[in-house]
C-alpha cells in the first residue's frame, strides 16, 4: 500500500539532512511501528508523507496505492486515503468541530467524485462514532481542539480518522501526553479501525502504546534511516535495554 524507497529529505530553511535513505513498505491490513530515539527523523517522515511545507525531498520516492505522494498537495493525499494523526493537534478558534469534520469528509468525497454526505446522515454517523470515543455533544460543538485536554485532542484525532475512513493511517506519537486510561481509549479507537484493507504506521517513542495497538512489524529508526526491522519482540527489546544496544549492534 505505502511504498517508501530510498527517501532523502532536507530542511528547506537550513541545509540539514534529516532523512538519509528510508526504505519501508506497509501492506494493507498490517500495522507497522517505527520506534527510535529523539531526532531520528520519525516525525519528519510523517510530515513529508502528508505534505507539510518546509521539507525538500532530494532523492527517493513515496507512493500510496501506486500514486506518487510527493507530487500532490496535502488535500489530494488526504483524498487518496492518507491520514496523519498529529502529535500536537492544532487549535482552530471560531471553527466548530462538527463543521470542520463535515467539511473535511465532504471535501474528500467531492475530490473522489463521490456524493456528499447529507447533514442528517453525517450527524447520525458522527454521534455513533464519537460515542465510542467518549466524545460528547459539547466537544463536537466547540471550536476545533480549543480548550481540549491532551487526551481530548488525541481522541478527537481518532474521531477524525474514524469519520474520514482513510486507507493508510499514520499516528505520530499519539501516546505523548496521555495517561494510561486515555491511551487505552485511544488504542481501542484505533483497533476498532483495523481491517484488512487499511494500513497503519504507528510512530512512537515507547513500547507501551504497542501493548495496546499490537504491531505486525517493528522498525527501529536512527539518524534518518531504518536500521533494524523485526517482529513485536523488537519493541520489547527496546523497552528492556533502550536503544543503545540496538544501535551499537548495527553500527
Amino acid at each position: 500500500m505505502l511504498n517508501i524507497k530510498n527517501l532523502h529529505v532536507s530542511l528547506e530553511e537550513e541545509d540539514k539532512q534529516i532523512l538519509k535513505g528510508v526504505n519501508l513498505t506497509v501492506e494493507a491490513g498490517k500495522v507497522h511501528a517505527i520506534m527510535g530515539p529523539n531526532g531520528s527523523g520519525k516525525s519528519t517522515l510523517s510530515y513529508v508523507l502528508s505534505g507539510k511545507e518546509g521539507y525538500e525531498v532530494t532523492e527517493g520516492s513515496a507512493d500510496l496505492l501506486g500514486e506518487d505522494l510527493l507530487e500532490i498537495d496535502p488535500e489530494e493525499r488526504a483524498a487518496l486515503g492518507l491520514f496523519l494523526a498529529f502529535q500536537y493537534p492544532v487549535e482552530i478558534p471560531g471553527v466548530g468541530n462538527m463543521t470542520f469534520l463535515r467539511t473535511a469528509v465532504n471535501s474528500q468525497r467531492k475530490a473522489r467524485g463521490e456524493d456528499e454526505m447529507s447533514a442528517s446522515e453525517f450527524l447520525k454517523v458522527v454521534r455513533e462514532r464519537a460515542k465510542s470515543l467518549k466524545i460528547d455533544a459539547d466537544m463536537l460543538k466547540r471550536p476545533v481542539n480549543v480548550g481540549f485536554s491532551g487526551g481530548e485532542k488525541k481522541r478527537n484525532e481518532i474521531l477524525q480518522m474514524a469519520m474520514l475512513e482513510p486507507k493508510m493511517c499514520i499516528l505520530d506519537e499519539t501516546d505523548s501526553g496521555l495517561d494510561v486510561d486515555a491511551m487505552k481509549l485511544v488504542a481501542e479507537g484505533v483497533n476498532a479501525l483495523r481491517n484488512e484493507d487499511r494500513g497503519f504506521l504507528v510512530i512512537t517513542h515507547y513500547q507501551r502504546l504497542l501493548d495496546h495497538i499490537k504491531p505486525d512489524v517493528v522498525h527501529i529508526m536512527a539518524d534518518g534511516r531504518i536500521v533494524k526491522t523485526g517482529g513485536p519482540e523488537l519493541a520489547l527489546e527496546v523497552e528492556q535495554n533502550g536503544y543503545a544496544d540496538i544501535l551499537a549492534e548495527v553500527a
Partner: protein
Amino acid sequence: MTLAQVKIDATEERLNTLDMPQEGWSTAAREDALVRLRSMGLPSRRDEYWKYTRPDTLVQPTAPDAAVLHTDEGPVFDTLGRLKIVFVDGVFSADESDDLTLEGVMIERLAGATADIHWAKGLYGVLENNGQNPVERPLAALNTAYATDGVLIHVTGTPSKPINLIYRHISTSSDAILHHVVKVEKGANLTILEDGPAAARLNMCMEIDVADTATFHHVRAQGRDHERRAATHMFARLGTESTFKSFTLTANGVMTRNECVIELAGDDAHATVAGAALGDGDFHHDDTVFITHDAVNCESRQVFKKVLRNGATGVFQGKILVKAGAQKTDGYQISQSLLLDEDSQFLAKPELEIYADDVACSHGSTSGAIDEEALFYLRSRGVPVGEATDMLTLSFLAEAVEEIEDGTLAEEINERLAAWLARRRG
C-alpha cells in the same frame, strides 16, 4: 485658535454647494451646527485625527463618481420580518418603504417634518454637539446643519420586528446627507438594521438616546459598491442599566470612515461596538471609536477585525476615556487585521485615558497572516487550500461577529462574509 485660511476656503467652498433645509423645529439646531462647523473648519489631511485617512474626497465640493454595483446577491436581511424604510440616493422612497406604523414606535421622516416634534428637538444635533468634545468631528456638524433626509424614531415599547433602513444607490454622482434620531424610552427595546451603499458619497449621522434599562441593537451592512465613499457617525448616550450593541459589516468601498461616539452616562450600562471589514485592492476603511465612561460599573467592548488584501488599508482609532468617579469600569478593546499579502496595511491607534482608580481596561492590536500550522492541519484532512484559507479567515472574523446578539442576524452576516471570500477564491 484661528483657522488657517486654506481651511476656511475649503469649508466655504463646500458650503457653497449646500442649502440648509428650512423645517421650523430643527432650524435653530442647524444654525448652531453651522456656527460650530465654521469654527472648526472641515477636516484636512494635516489634522491629527485624520492622520491615517485622507478626508479630501469626503470634503470636496462635489462627490467623485461611483459606479453602481450590479449583483445577483439578494439584499441583506431580505428573508427576515422587518419594517422597511427605503432611501434611494439619500431620498426617502415612500413607494418602496413599508407603511411607517409599528406598535411601540413612532416613525417620522426628517424631511418635511415641520410640526414641532418635541422629543426630537431635544436631541437633534444635541448628542452630536456633545460628541464634539474633546475631539472635533466637523463632518458630523455639517451633517446636522445640512441633512436633507432621515428618520426620527421614538420607541416607547418593544416592537415585534426590527426597523430596516435600506440605502439604495442608483445615480453614479449622488451625494447624500442623512440624519437619523432615535430615542429609546425607559425599558423599551429596538433593533435597527441598515443595508446598502446609499449614494456615491454618503454623510450619515445617527443620534441615539438610550434611556434607563432600555436596549438598542444595531446591525449594519454598508453595501459592496467598490467606488462608494462614506463618512458615518453614531452618537449614543446610555442611561442606567441600558444596553447598546452595534455591529458593522463593511465589504469593499474605496473610502469609509465610521465614527462611533458613546457616552456611558448612567450606572451599570453596557456598550459594544464591533465590526468586520473586508477589503480587496482599492479599499480604505477607518473605524474611529470614542467611548466615555462617566458612571459607575459600566462595561464597554470594542471588537474590530479586518481582512485586507491586494494593497487594501485598514485603520483603527479607538479610545476609552474613564472619567474621575467612573469606578468599576470594565473596558475592553481589540483591533486585529489579517493581512492576506504583503501589500496591505493596517494602522492602529489604541488609546486609554483613565482618571478613576478602580477600573479594568484592556486593549490589544495585532496584524498577522494566515496561520500556516492551522492551514496544513485543515489541508491534511482533505480541505482544499482555498476553502481552508476561507475557514481560517472566517474563524479570524468570528470574534467580531459573535458580538451580534441575535443568532439569525449573526448567521446572515457570516453568510455574507463567506460569500465575499468565496467570490475571491474564483
